């Protein structure tokens, strides 16, 4: 459907916009994208959780992220959720939407993190508004599969 392409294309342009200019460093640009994702996620989750019932606990919230949020934003669910029950969650997506348009394999591995920064921020923003402070990082070993690691800050 054509509507799905709009988000993909805007995201692509956002990534290339943020990396414009010779003086910008990789870290700064990625931080900008992450911040954009954070603000988006924060406001988005307010609207999305309106209809869902109250969450019982942290795991409930994580399941919500993997199912409802991912379906709403990326039109698919997270393929695998792992946790060590001590505040670390790993989300596996075997075919991440923003990476699915690039060649599968290792050819563009060095550029993949740019396309994950916004999503890391999105997840962090959603969790922040739901009351969970955390750090979200992403890892790619082979396109288009990727892993998001969420580390909940407790204490």
């Amino acid at each position, binding site marked *: 459907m054509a509507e799905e392409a709009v988000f993909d294309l805007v995201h692509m342009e956002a990534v290339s916009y943020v990396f414009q200019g010779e003086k910008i460093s990789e870290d700064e640009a990625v931080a900008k994208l992450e911040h954009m994702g954070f603000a988006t996620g*924060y*406001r988005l*989750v*307010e*609207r999305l*959780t*309106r209809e*869902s*019932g*109250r*969450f*019982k*606990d942290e795991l409930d919230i994580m399941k919500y992220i993997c199912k409802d949020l991912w379906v709403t934003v990326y039109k698919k669910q997270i393929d695998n959720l792992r946790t060590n029950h001590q505040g670390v969650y790993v989300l596996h997506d075997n075919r991440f939407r923003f990476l699915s348009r690039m060649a599968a394999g290792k050819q563009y591995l060095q550029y993949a993190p740019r396309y994950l920064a916004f999503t890391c921020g999105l997840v962090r923003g959603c969790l922040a*508004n*739901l*009351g969970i402070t955390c750090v979200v990082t992403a890892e790619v070993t082979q396109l288009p599969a990727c892993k998001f690691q969420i580390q909940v800050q407790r204490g």
Partner: protein
Amino acid sequence: MAVCVAVIGKENSPLYVWVGSGREELHLHYLAHTGLDVIQEKVAAVSKTPGDTRELYLGLLYASEEYKVFGYTTNTRVKFVIITDAANTTLRDNEIRMMFRRLHNMYTNVVCNPFYIPGEQITSREFDRGVAALVAGN
């Protein structure tokens, strides 16, 4: 007829308080604030009883001689409090739920405004009008 409508943020800071004209503002602010303790109890209690339908509407928080206080919490830890006259028996539970739903919708719209920073006081005129319509419509 609602006498006071309050939106309270995550850290229990007031984001928006509307009090009907001719009412004792301070007393109503105080009532809304004490309602927060009851909300906290209810939220903590629900998380221990599984099998309860976990909905956002919390119902009557408490009733005094003059006023009845109703509460509603969202998943993002924002609370809404509506205070009505105790003598007013025409307002049914369903109507209060509808009022809270509309309030929630209005709040969501405010959050989506790029010029609104979450955590600040709500100064939107649209929100003011919405609350006025909410109170008048019942």
